[in-house]
């Protein structure tokens, strides 16, 4: 099965061109079949929710589906970023950096593909990332951006917890957010090795609490990195 999957999804399609939005049909069908069998992924049908709005905005939808699409949007952005990072590695990338960044790229691609499969017909389209402000030849630019993306991801998942109604999705968000926090920690440590920065006082408050942001705070922060306009008006409110 592994082998088949690999053949159906050559590395030079979805990886280098996430926007092409290549679907692994066999995986998708398998997921859909399993979902139907287990009932685990039976979601409300909300085709009109993710239609493009009058201004061409991408509508995330409502309820838990909206939050999962929100996560899917962020994972698309992260995956596209790390794919570019490893397609054009910055000058002087060490072996350790290469190992970590390759792993992180793979994790983000897995997250992206997972949400896409989980959302099925309710998934938003593949977004067009805008990385024009990032210098992929520069270690400082790449790791600095990675730090922002990972910390933002952690804050976004933390802030989405109370907005989810289904405990299955809350647990899934929990399973992913700690991996994002591991990424954030190690990216920060690459920038400032063996200092307190891996969990720095700039992000952890006086009660030992990490960042937490609601979608209304996160989406404007990531908007400059996405060409599409995102309509989050249907998301649950805290």
């Amino acid at each position, binding site marked *: 099965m592994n082998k088949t999957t690999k053949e159906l999804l050559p590395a030079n399609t979805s990886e280098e061109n996430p926007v092409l939005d290549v679907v692994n049909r066999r995986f998708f069908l398998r997921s859909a079949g399993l979902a139907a069998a287990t009932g685990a992924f039976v979601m409300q049908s909300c085709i009109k929710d993710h239609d493009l709005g009058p201004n061409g905005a991408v509508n995330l939808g409502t309820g838990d589906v909206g939050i999962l699409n929100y996560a899917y949007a962020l994972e698309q952005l992260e995956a596209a970023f790390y794919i570019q990072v490893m397609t054009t590695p910055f000058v002087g990338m060490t072996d350790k950096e290469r190992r970590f960044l390759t792993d992180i790229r*793979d994790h983000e691609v897995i997250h992206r593909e997972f949400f896409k499969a989980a959302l099925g017909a309710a998934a938003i389209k593949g977004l067009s990332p805008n990385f024009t402000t990032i210098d992929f030849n520069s270690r400082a630019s790449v790791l600095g951006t990675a730090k922002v993306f990972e910390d933002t991801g952690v804050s976004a998942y933390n802030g989405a917890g109370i907005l989810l109604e289904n405990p299955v999705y809350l647990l899934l968000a929990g399973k992913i957010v700690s991996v994002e926090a*591991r990424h954030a920690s190690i990216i920060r440590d690459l920038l400032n090795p063996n200092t307190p920065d891996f969990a720095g006082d700039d992000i952890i408050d006086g009660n030992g609490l990490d960042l937490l942001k609601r979608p209304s705070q996160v989406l404007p922060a990531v908007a400059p990195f996405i060409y599409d306009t995102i309509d989050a008006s249907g998301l649950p409110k805290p």
Partner: protein
Amino acid sequence: MNIFKIIDEIQQVDGDAVERLQHATRRSFMTKFSRSMAAAAVPTAMAAVFNKAYAFTPGAIDVLKFALTLEYLERDFYDMGNKSGVVKDPYKAVFQQIGKHEYQHVEFLKTALGIKDESMKPKFDFTQKGALDPFTNFDTFVFLSHAFEDTGVRAYKGQAGNLMAKEDEPLLDYALQIHSVEARHAAKAREILSMIRNKPEIKPWITRDEGSPAAVYAGEGNTVQGGVDITGIGGKSLDAVTEAFDEPLTKDQVLAIAMPFIA
């Protein structure tokens, strides 16, 4: 302090107390108790919240007590380790930072539970009756650190579902905010273990269910997420698929891991 016993007692003198409890709005709580609040203001704010007649569910109180036990374990471990001199350069600042956060987590949870003393703190024996040497052997210290942090991540994750009642909403926020701090700690502790053992296969993230002690990593090799087997998703390796998702532990699993360290 048992918050419910207090409410019962209030009810005895004020027959409408419960009804007024139900009128306490979430919004006023959230506003009062926001993240931006200075740490020093927490006890006051907690008291103010209680005066506003706000209560958490019994299930949530149990989660807080469980979390406090784990945070006590971590706090004492780093406190003893950082004072012992076992921590080697260049890692001193890292373990000072982790120790600081564990101390803060203990204080925060005590405040949430209305506990002022250390009466809830178990007695710990990190040497397991002399079998381990974490405060004289840096490798043992880092080994236990990474195991405690990974266990902490899995423990909080396993409790999130018990904080989904509307009245527990602030606690779910806080639990998630502690959870990701533990994950940051875990990644760095694992990286240090990898460095001092010269083992690049020990990564900041958990590969399959590899790792020691085995009980800490049991179930981490799971590939079924939300009812769907994601083996091979995106054409990625089994290692990557299992690294991309951290798994929860039940309270019983966590206590079984912690028990050997409780004297």
